[in-house]
């Protein structure tokens, strides 16, 4: 029993479909070009559940736009059902030709009842063989199949670009917090610490050497200078006078005190005078102390280019001093924090580091002024905590010479600032005391006791003034930094220092330069190592905070929840409600490794698909990816050619071994064991082409199916007069006889039947007349194919 097809076309826009395929078999369907023969065949292929437009998106789009709700009726079916009616729904068709045909194709009724589209696919099939198909076409189709598949996968991979970017960020975060990274940094930090410990004695030794040699050079330079100019003798004399004046001072003070006591035991007026004198003495003493102290620590002023004896500061000088104090404070805070860090336990430092990371991050986000908490009525902001962090000492630091040095410098700079700040007040008090003394001591005329006090005070002040003056003159004559020692002692000290370092005097300059270079080098190295260690500590704290943040995200954010699923794959993993410490290092390492490997695999996959997509579009490509593609095409083609009917027709019934696309050859072994190789082009014409078609038909015949239509399209070459016999033989041969009830040979008009009609007679004339009538009516005719 054969099936027939009726078409109720709703096509528009020039799309035509032939309206009917009769039950005649084998059927000859011959007609004008452009009447919709091929279009109907392709629609029927589609209705059988296969996509004939897979590599033709433009043709698909055109069909979808024009075909309309055309109705295909397939009747005369064998089996469970006899009639299927499919009403196309092109509005629901996908925009690009989908390989999988689904319910979108149309509404189906089978024997009058609505049915699922898949039921039609199960009971109806269509084979469309094109007579012009050659091996080279098959080859192109193979590449096209891969190209289409790769394009689709490329599109799918492009759609996950955002997720890949997100994965990259998560991978970076996991790698940052991974135990492996922690361990690597830890080892590097230990190495840096050891290096620094090893450097410490060298640094100390170099520093001592430079200090001593500088001292020796300085003393010697001073000795040279003073001996050359005769200053040595002058300084010597001044020192002697200074010693004498210092020895005299206690006596002067005692004399004043004695005079004051005597005055205090006198009359009321004398007692008042005693008080006034005592206040005056104290005021003078305060001014003296202030001036003397300024001289003692005046070197800091000299360093700033300010006269150490200047009683007041200009506004510019005051600013210089303020800046120096600020710089010293910064140095002190830095050194103190470093010193405190040395004294804290690792755990204590870790807590502070982590807080610093969080606070710095808040500052970077513009939250420096955010008040974190209230302490005794004061709002404590992020920046306040950040600045104060790490500065608390439970005990004073006394064993750090460098810190002590900068602390002393800071203290003296601040003292200088106070001295200048207090000076107007001291002057005011002195002025008041002088006036009070003049008032209380001069009203009753001459008084011996008062006279004695005034004399004693003047003597003491003279001595104080002399000491200050002598100090000033000695300082002016001495080079900066010269110690307050005698010349002989200085000479002896220079000798000792040179001996200590086994340095000859003539070489001192060079030795000192070399020593300074060495010290500078060590200091640079030490600074660098400190920086490296500090950087590792910072990174370690950042890691801990980052791990905590990541853990939090994993357990609270949907975007990260998949990592929990991954973590569950860790052998013996146990989820814990506690924070990140509950996730052991193994879990973090597992996550980091897996995510990193997945990212790498994904990147590799995307790269390969991109490369393969490119080479699939250009069959002339070379390289590993092109070779992989060619290998599969060769393999598929070989499998197709190895099918028994084709092997019988084209390869002597032997076994197809290889298809070589590079050489464009097929190699097979005959049943007699002979290996033969032939170019693919040899199968493109003549009897070989017929053999190939025969083989394809044989393949179809070997797979019997109910309700099948087998269209032989473009078979003009085989039906023409000189080739009719081969086609007839083909269709009536035993091997394909099973297809007799299925075959429809589709042909363009083979002759101008109307013109030839008058030249024919008998049965042929009848045939021609029928053909002319049908062609004139519908553009095509059908009849049983005769051999």
């Amino acid at each position: 029993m054969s099936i027939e097809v009726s078409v109720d076309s709703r096509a528009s826009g020039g799309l035509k479909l032939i309206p009917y395929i009769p039950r005649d078999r084998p059927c000859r369907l011959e007609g004008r070009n452009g009447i919709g023969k091929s279009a109907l065949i392709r629609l029927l292929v589609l209705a059988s559940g296969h996509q004939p437009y897979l590599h033709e998106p433009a043709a698909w789009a055109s069909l979808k736009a024009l075909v309309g709700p055309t109705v295909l009726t397939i009747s005369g079916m064998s089996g469970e059902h006899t009639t299927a009616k499919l009403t196309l729904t092109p509005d629901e068709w996908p925009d690009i030709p989908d390989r999988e045909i689904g319910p979108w194709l149309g509404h189906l009724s089978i024997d009058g009842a609505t049915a699922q589209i898949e039921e039609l696919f199960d009971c109806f099939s269509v084979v469309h063989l094109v007579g012009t198909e050659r091996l080279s076409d098959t080859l192109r189709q193979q590449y096209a199949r891969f190209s289409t598949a790769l394009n689709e996968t490329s599109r799918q991979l492009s759609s996950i670009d955002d997720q890949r970017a997100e994965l990259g960020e998560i991978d970076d975060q996991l790698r940052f917090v991974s135990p492996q990274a922690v361990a690597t940094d830890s080892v590097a930090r230990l190495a840096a610490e050891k290096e620094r410990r090893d450097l410490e004695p060298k640094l100390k030794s170099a520093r001592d050497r430079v200090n001593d040699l500088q001292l020796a050079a300085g003393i010697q330079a001073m000795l040279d200078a003073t001996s050359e100019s005769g200053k040595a003798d002058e300084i010597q004399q001044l020192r002697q006078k200074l010693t004498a004046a210092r020895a005299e001072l206690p006596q002067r003070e005692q004399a004043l005190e004695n005079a004051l006591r005597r005055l205090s035991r006198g009359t009321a007026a004398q007692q008042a005078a005693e008080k006034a004198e005592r206040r005056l003495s104290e005021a003078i003493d305060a001014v003296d102390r202030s001036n003397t102290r300024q001289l003692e620590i005046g070197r800091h002023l000299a360093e700033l280019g300010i006269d150490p004896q200047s009683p007041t500061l200009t506004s510019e000088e005051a600013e210089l001093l303020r800046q120096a104090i600020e710089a010293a404070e910064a140095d002190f805070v830095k050194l103190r924090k470093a010193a405190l860090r040395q004294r804290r336990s690792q755990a204590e430092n870790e807590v502070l580091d982590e807080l610093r990371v969080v606070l710095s991050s808040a500052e970077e986000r513009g939250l420096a002024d955010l008040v974190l908490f209230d302490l005794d009525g004061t709002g404590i902001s992020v920046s306040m905590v950040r600045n104060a962090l790490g500065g608390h000492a439970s005990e004073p630091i006394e064993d750090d010479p460098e810190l002590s040095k900068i602390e002393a410098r800071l203290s003296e700079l601040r003292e200088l600032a106070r001295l200048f700040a207090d000076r107007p007040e001291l002057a005011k008090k002195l002025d008041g005391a002088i006036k009070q003394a003049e008032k209380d001591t001069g009203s009753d005329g001459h008084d011996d006791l008062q006279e004695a006090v005034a004399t004693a005070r003047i003597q003491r002040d003279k001595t104080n003034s002399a000491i200050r003056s002598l100090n000033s003159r000695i300082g002016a004559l001495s080079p900066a930094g010269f110690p307050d020692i005698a010349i002989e002692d200085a000479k002896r000290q220079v000798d000792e220092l040179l001996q200590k370092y086994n340095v000859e005097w003539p070489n001192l300059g060079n030795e000192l330069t070399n020593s300074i270079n060495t010290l500078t080098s060590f200091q640079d190295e030490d600074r660098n190592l400190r920086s490296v260690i500090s950087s590792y500590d910072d990174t370690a704290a950042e890691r801990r905070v980052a791990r905590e943040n990541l853990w939090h995200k994993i357990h609270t954010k949907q975007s990260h929840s998949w990592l929990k699923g991954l973590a569950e794959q860790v052998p013996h993993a146990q989820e814990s409600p506690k924070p990140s410490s509950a996730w052991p290092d193994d879990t973090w390492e597992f996550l980091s490794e897996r995510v990193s490997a997945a990212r790498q695999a994904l990147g590799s996959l995307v790269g390969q698909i991109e490369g393969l997509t490119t080479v699939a579009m250009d069959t002339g490509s070379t390289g590993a990816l092109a070779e992989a593609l060619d290998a599969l095409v060769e393999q598929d083609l070989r499998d197709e050619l190895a099918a028994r009917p084709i092997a019988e027709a084209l390869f002597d019934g032997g076994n197809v071994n290889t298809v070589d696309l590079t050489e464009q050859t097929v190699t097979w072994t005959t049943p007699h064991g002979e290996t033969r190789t032939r170019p693919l082009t040899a199968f493109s014409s003549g009897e070989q082409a017929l053999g190939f078609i025969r083989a394809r038909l044989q393949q179809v015949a070997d797979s019997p199916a109910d309700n099948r239509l087998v269209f032989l399209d473009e078979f003009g070459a085989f039906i023409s007069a000189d080739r009719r016999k081969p086609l007839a033989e083909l269709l009536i041969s035993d091997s394909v006889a099973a297809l007799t009830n299925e075959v429809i040979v589709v042909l363009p008009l083979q002759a101008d039947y109307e013109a030839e009609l008058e030249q024919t007679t008998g049965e042929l004339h009848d045939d021609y007349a029928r053909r002319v009538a049908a062609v004139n009516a519908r553009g095509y005719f059908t009849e049983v194919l005769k051999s």
Partner: protein
Amino acid sequence: MNDADLVVRLVEQVARGAARELSADDASAGHDRDEAVTMLKALQHNQFDVFDAIVSWAREH
């Protein structure tokens, strides 16, 4: 064979091709490419959701 299977075959072929070219000492590169195959399968299985695919991909290792 559908499109997805075709691409899997192709990526597998790339891995095999690489393995053929590599020396035995350099098996890790081939291993990486095998991971590309399993990643593709995982992506296909999980409708191209990267994160779900990684979870099932990791299970394969």
